[in-house]
């Protein structure tokens, strides 16, 4: 039995095998300015011209770069611009190159929710809550794009509605560490902070019982990458010759995806749980242009025709 498990592990892609370590390293790299947590200051380095791939507040003392959602709203809500080509360009490039691999491997808040889900407790299925997945697209459209663009003051500046009213990362990574070391910030926290702390608490509690509730239902960054997941160069491939249709992969998937039906489903975060559960090793990662599984099928068909 133990030998079988070892064989299974060896057959799983190295990325999926070491996913937890990759997530930890990504969270550390995204927040690499650790001494800032002690002195309560923010990093002012040039790295903040660029956006990090995951949801990570730029008011976190350790943040190495800018949060893409915060950066988009900062540009859209400024008096100079009404749309951010810069951040949209970065997000399109990241989405096409990696898709929701970013959610599964590189997002610090996704990793945080996964760690909470490891706390022993009854684990609840989200199969029947699938319609809630569409909420995140509404949040992306309304709170991130439309409201900062339309609801403006006399100077033409709009609020970052998502960051202000919904994002729990600002409290977790910004308000909590900064208020510990800075009395001025501590005394300035009021009703808005209480609301956002409530949202964070709800996400924390939800994450213990559900797998990644914020990623599934609320995250606008996940929604953007989900839109590009089908055309991402990072793809899942199911070898139909090897697949025995046992359904083990669909059962193992905590994002409620049946990889055999739609290998590049919008909700697939490339975590590799399906690969680990597959008894015939029919599922693997592939990287490149085009639909690689179909490209292989066409080339084998051509070879057969030549024979």
């Amino acid at each position, binding site marked *: 039995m133990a030998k079988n498990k070892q064989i299974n592990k060896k057959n799983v892609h190295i990325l999926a095998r070491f996913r937890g370590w990759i997530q930890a390293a990504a969270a550390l790299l995204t927040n690499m300015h650790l001494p800032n947590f002690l002195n309560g200051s923010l990093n002012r380095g040039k790295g903040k011209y660029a956006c990090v791939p995951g949801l990570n507040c730029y008011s976190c003392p350790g943040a190495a770069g*800018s*949060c893409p959602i915060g950066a988009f709203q900062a540009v859209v809500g*400024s008096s100079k611009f009404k749309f951010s*080509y810069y951040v949209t360009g970065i997000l399109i490039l990241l989405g096409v*190159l990696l898709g929701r691999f970013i959610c599964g491997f590189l997002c610090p808040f996704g990793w945080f929710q996964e760690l909470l889900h490891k706390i022993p407790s009854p684990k609840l299925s989200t199969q029947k809550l699938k319609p809630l997945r569409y909420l995140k697209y509404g949040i992306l459209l309304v709170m991130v794009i439309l409201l900062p663009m339309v609801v403006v003051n006399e100077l033409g500046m709009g609020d970052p509605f998502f960051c202000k009213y919904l994002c729990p990362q600002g409290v977790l990574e910004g308000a909590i560490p900064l208020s510990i070391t800075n009395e001025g910030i501590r005394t300035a926290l*009021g009703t808005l902070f209480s609301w*956002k702390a409530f949202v964070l608490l709800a996400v924390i509690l939800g994450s213990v019982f559900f797998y990644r509730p914020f990623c599934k239902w609320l995250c606008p960054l996940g929604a953007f990458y989900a839109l590009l997941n089908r055309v991402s160069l990072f793809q899942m491939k199911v070898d139909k010759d090897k697949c025995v249709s046992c359904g083990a992969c669909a059962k193992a998937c905590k994002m409620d995806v049946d990889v055999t039906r739609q290998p590049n489903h919008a909700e697939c975060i490339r975590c590799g749980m399906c690969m680990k559960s597959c008894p015939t090793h029919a599922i693997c990662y592939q990287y490149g242009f085009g639909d690689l599984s179909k490209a292989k099928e066409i080339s084998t068909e051509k070879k057969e025709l030549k024979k």
Partner: protein
Amino acid sequence: MVFKKAAVQVLLLLAGIAMLIFGIWREEAQTVFSKAIRLCMECVGIG
């Protein structure tokens, strides 16, 4: 189908690069930077 998907991928990558360059040209990166190096009041819940 294979080539159609590849064409979409190439087009999106080119569009992403073009948008990125256009955004840098009209100094959006400066706006991002100046917001990111200061405390974001809305993000931390001050308002």
